[in-house]
Structures are given as structure tokens and as C-alpha cells.
């Protein structure tokens, strides 16, 4: 009696794009990069979050009713998040045309909110123990920053600008932090309730093992950190940026899909998946 898939690739794609887009804004504007790069990052961030928002609306049963989500701003994390997306997209757009210190701060607050709330959205769901931890918003925020930094690396190269000297070092630092968080996350889950442990096992050794080990751990964390340490060339930095983006997308995928609920007596594992 398999019940339906609740959230699929559209939601995972949104979680990734919202994180990466908001992260790009945070890294460029928060890192005091050149005005042209900051404006480009604002535009890129707004576009990516916009595509993500379209995926989210596209995932609704009745798409034309999406405005109803906005009419009850504090009713749910979906509503709070929608307002955060709206605030980020509007402040980012205005920043692109009229960059200023106040707008930069508003944009950064909205960007931090957008990146973090995606983790809160899943983290508050008590019924799914693999998500139900304050570690999740922290992990999603750090992943947003690392994928954001990767986007800025690629954007700098595409615009033919000189690379900021700290970007490479900070990307490396973020990857180390993210790796530590992923390690802690799995450590906590493996030793948590039976359902959380089963979810963690499915990620480590089961259905999502390739997404986890190849996507997030190898492509997203180990290889890019090794490249950033050992290979100084710019094209190597760009290659590692692409890999970090792939790792961040994989992270959202296995995290979303492995969020199982506790089985009722007689329910199979397939029944309790998202």
C-alpha cells in the first residue's frame, strides 16, 4: 500500500537554488567584492531564487492559488519562507539597480533568512526524525555559503575579473566546516531513534549511497578541498566550484528523500518515505 511521493526533485531543486542564490549574494555583498561583481551576484542570486520559486509554485497542486500562501504570513514556515523569498528577490533587484549600504544589509538579512529557513522548513517536522534537528538549518546555511562562493568563483571567471584573494581560502574553510557538519549530522542520526538510524543507513549504505559518497562527500567536499589546497591555477578553482555545486545539489536530494516517518505496525519502509 505505498502512499504517494510527497516531495520530489522539484522541491530538492528549490532547496538547492534558494541556498546557492542567497549564498552568492551573501558572499559577494557580505565579502565587500567589487561593485560590478556584487551587482552581478545580486542579479544571479535573484534569478536562481526566482527559478527555485517557480519550481516551488510548479510543485503545487493548484498553481494559480499560490498567493494564498502569502495571505497568512505567519501561519507556516512555507508562508514565512515565501515572504523571505519575496523580500530577497525585491531587495536584490533594487540593489542591482541602486546599490547602497542599507539595501545591502536588507538583502543580506533576507538572503540569510532564505538560506536558513529551507533547513527550518524540514527541521521542524517532528514526524520525520532524520530532519528534526537544529543541525539541519545550520548545515543548509553553510552549504548555501559554500555553493554561493562557488557561484561567485564562476561568475568572476565568466566576467573576466581578477579573483578575490580570500575567496579560495574561504571556500576551503567553508568546505571543512560543511564536512564537519555532515559528519556530525550522520553521527547523531546513526545513534538516534530507530527511524533516524534507518534513514542514515539508507544514505550511508543504501538507496542514496551514491548521492552521498560520490555527490556530497567526494565531488562536493573532499576533491574540491584537495584541489583548492594542492592546485593553485584558476581553472582548477573553477573546476572545484562546479564540483561544490554538484555536491550541494546532492546534499539536498538525499536529505529530502531520506526523511522517513516512523512506521506504524505493519507498514513497510516504502510506505514511510517522503
Amino acid at each position: 500500500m505505498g502512499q504517494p511521493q510527497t516531495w520530489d526533485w522539484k522541491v530538492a531543486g528549490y532547496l538547492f537554488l534558494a541556498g546557492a542564490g542567497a549564498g552568492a549574494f551573501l558572499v559577494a555583498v557580505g565579502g565587500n567584492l567589487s561593485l560590478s561583481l556584487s551587482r552581478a551576484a545580486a542579479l544571479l542570486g535573484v534569478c536562481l531564487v526566482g527559478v527555485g520559486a517557480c519550481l516551488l509554485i510548479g510543485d503545487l497542486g493548484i498553481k494559480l492559488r499560490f498567493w494564498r500562501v502569502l495571505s497568512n504570513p505567519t501561519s507556516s514556515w512555507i508562508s514565512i519562507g515565501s515572504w523571505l523569498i519575496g523580500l530577497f528577490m525585491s531587495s536584490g533587484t533594487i540593489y542591482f539597480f541602486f546599490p547602497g549600504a542599507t539595501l545591502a544589509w536588507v538583502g543580506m538579512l533576507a538572503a540569510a533568512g532564505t538560506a536558513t529557513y529551507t533547513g527550518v522548513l524540514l527541521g521542524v517536522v517532528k514526524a520525520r526524525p532524520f530532519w528534526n534537528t537544529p543541525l539541519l538549518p545550520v548545515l543548509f546555511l553553510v552549504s548555501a555559503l559554500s555553493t554561493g562562493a562557488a557561484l561567485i568563483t564562476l561568475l568572476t571567471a565568466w566576467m573576466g575579473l581578477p579573483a578575490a584573494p580570500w575567496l579560495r581560502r574561504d571556500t576551503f574553510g567553508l568546505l571543512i566546516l560543511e564536512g564537519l557538519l555532515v559528519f556530525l549530522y550522520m553521527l547523531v542520526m546513526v545513534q538516534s531513534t530507530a527511524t533516524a538510524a534507518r534513514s542514515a543507513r539508507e544514505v550511508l549504505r543504501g538507496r542514496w549511497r551514491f548521492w552521498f559518497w560520490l555527490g556530497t562527500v567526494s565531488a562536493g567536499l573532499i576533491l574540491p578541498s584537495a584541489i583548492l589546497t594542492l592546485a593553485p591555477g584558476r581553472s582548477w578553482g573553477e573546476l572545484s566550484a562546479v564540483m561544490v555545486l554538484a555536491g550541494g545539489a546532492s546534499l539536498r536530494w538525499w536529505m529530502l528523500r531520506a526523511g522517513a516517518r516512523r512506521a506504524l505496525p505493519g507498514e513497510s519502509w516504502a510506505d514511510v518515505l517522503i
Partner: protein
Amino acid sequence: MPERLGMLIDLKKCISCQACTVACKVHNKVPLGRFVNRVLKVGPEGNFPHLGYYGLPAACMQCTDPPCVDVCPTKASAIAPNGVIMIDDKKCVGCRYCMAACPYGARVFNEERRVVQKCTFCFERRERGRQPICVQTCVGGARYFGDLNDPQAEVSRLIHERHAENLLPDLNTQPGVFYCRP
């Protein structure tokens, strides 16, 4: 005291015939492959020769503190004055956050109507003064339906006498659906 509708399911009387599953699907027009009410098969469990299995009818638990209502972004999901969790089809956008939040897997997405569907204790049958279809159709007479706040009601009396329990009580959702052990 206001009415608080609830149900008791006597697992000793359930014979896992799935009559309620079918009746619910037909009556509530639940799409193919989706189940608002289902009878889970538990077991066989135990050690030979003391083996057995039982059926566990599971639908919405009509929680007093429902996680699904908490997460609804449009307030389409709400607790009716009689305690039943209802979805306003005109307000539901089909975001399915409630399906992620429900610990009992009681909500399904109706692809035809593009909104979320759940057990309403057969709202329109109750309007006509009738019992939910699963209660009426139950072959073994395993389901008792009524007002939990009325101490004279059969359902309340039996819940008390038989020390009936909730599913996943540690989540503190305080369901209005109770079970007698098999």
C-alpha cells in the same frame, strides 16, 4: 461540554477483510493507488506455535494537537468545533507540507482534484445523521463511533473499560481514535 467526535477500533474484532478500505475508497472517491483508510497487516509475529497476525485499520487519528494543521500555510486544514480535522478544498493549494508533517501517513494527494484529501469521518454522511461508511460497513463490528465527551456514549464507555490506547502516544498528538489490543 462540546461534542468531540472519536472512534474506537477493537483489533480483536477486526478480521482484516478490507471492507472498510474499499467502502472508503468508493464513497470518498479516493484515486487509484491512494488510501485515506487502510488496514495494515501486522505480522505474522511470535514464536511457533504461538503465531498470529492482526489487521490494523489506520486512517486520520483526528488529533487534538494536529501537526498537519500547524504547518498549513493557507489555513485550509483546521479543527472543526467537533474535533474533526477538515480540509477546505477551496483554500488548499496542494503544497503537501501536511503530508510530510502527519506522523500517521493519513493524508494523500488527490491528483484528480489537485488537493490533499483525508478522512473526515465521512462529513456528508454525518450531515445526514449517518455514521462514517467504515463503521457501517465493518463486518466484525470492530468500529465504534461517537462523542468522546459524552461519558454515556458506547465509544467513551468502551475506551474507559477496555483501557484503549492511541497509536504513537509519545508524540503527544492526543488522537481521537483509540484501539483495543488484538
